[in-house]
């Protein structure tokens, strides 16, 4: 017998089995055959330790298979922690839509997204929306997009304006809140309100990411009890200094990585790698 993996799950097969024989047993009709990252013929003989991927075109992996595939991409233990998480994203514009996509790909269990806005053409320079989504509420368009990445991710889409009166209800059950608004006064309102209701839940906020100033000035810092701030802290969006995909994307991915680090009990504001975690 030999030990291989099929779609990232361990599998024992008779020594000398061909790709086609495994395919017929596990996923009959699969047209795409990949061995160790390279396209393969059905006549190819497998050896101990090979990694076989079988794909039937048009088929979505079931929840368990998708889970195995995602687990395989992360350090052991990371995925188990991440998939239990529930993350709130306030605003799904330039920051929020990119954070949502990154967290969906990372394998979080649940997202609660809230925004009153509709998809407009000017959004396309930096936000994760597409031409065929113009006019749709952003939260519904984003929910559709996220379903195309991971249909087992649970998304609660709230098409409304967040106010001090509804923040606690909308985000009451999440573990971490991402502040992804556009206006400075709205950012302050949201952070103050959430921190007042839930002083022990982390907030990952964004401030200062306009234009094409150096990437290296975007940082993640800890501010006070449970607030983390991603951005350069000063480059305000203004006429002549617009919001652009690269720099907004850097800030958004600082936020997504901060969420991931918090889920793994690591300090988002640390500067140096702490060493390999053993789990």
């Amino acid at each position, binding site marked *: 017998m030999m030990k291989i993996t099929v779609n990232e799950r361990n599998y024992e097969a008779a020594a000398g089995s061909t790709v086609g024989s495994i395919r017929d047993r596990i996923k009959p009709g699969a047209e795409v055959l990949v061995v160790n990252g390279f396209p393969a013929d059905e006549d190819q003989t497998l050896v101990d330790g090979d990694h076989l991927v079988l794909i039937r075109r048009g088929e979505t992996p079931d929840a368990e298979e998708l889970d195995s595939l995602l687990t395989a991409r992360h350090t052991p233990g990371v995925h188990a922690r991440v998939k239990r998480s529930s993350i709130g994203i306030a605003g799904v514009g330039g*920051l929020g839509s990119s954070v949502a996509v990154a967290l969906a790909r990372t394998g979080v269990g649940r997202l609660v997204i809230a925004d009153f806005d509709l998809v407009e053409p000017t959004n396309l320079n930096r936000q994760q929306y597409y031409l065929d989504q113009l006019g749709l509420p952003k939260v519904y368009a984003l929910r559709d997009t996220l379903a195309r990445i991971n249909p087992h991710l649970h998304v609660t889409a709230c098409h409304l304006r967040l106010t001090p009166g509804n923040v606690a209800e909308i985000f009451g059950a999440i573990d971490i809140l991402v502040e992804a608004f556009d206006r*400075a*006064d709205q*950012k302050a309102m949201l952070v103050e309100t959430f921190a*007042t209701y839930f*002083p022990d839940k982390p907030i990952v906020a964004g*401030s200062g990411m306009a234009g094409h100033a150096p990437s290296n000035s975007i940082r993640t810092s800890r501010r006070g009890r449970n607030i983390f701030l991603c951005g350069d802290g*000063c480059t305000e969006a203004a006429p002549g200094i617009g919001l652009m995909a690269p720099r*907004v994307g850097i*800030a958004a991915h600082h936020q997504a990585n901060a969420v991931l680090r918090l889920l793994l009990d690591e300090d988002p504001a640390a500067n140096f790698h702490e060493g390999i975690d053993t789990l």
Partner: protein
Amino acid sequence: MKVIVNGVATITSANSTVQDLLLQLRLDSQQVVVERNRDIIPRQDFAVARLASGDVLEIVHFVGGG
């Protein structure tokens, strides 16, 4: 009297409120979140919350764009 603002020792007048301090630092009260000794001070209290010597304040200032 001396208070700590964002890790920096800052001199402010003896009866300063949070609002006075924001004016002194030229910060717009609509664009900040204030923590005093690790507790949030809501903006409706800025004008009445009196600071005490040695208070440790975190004033998070937000700019627009996101």
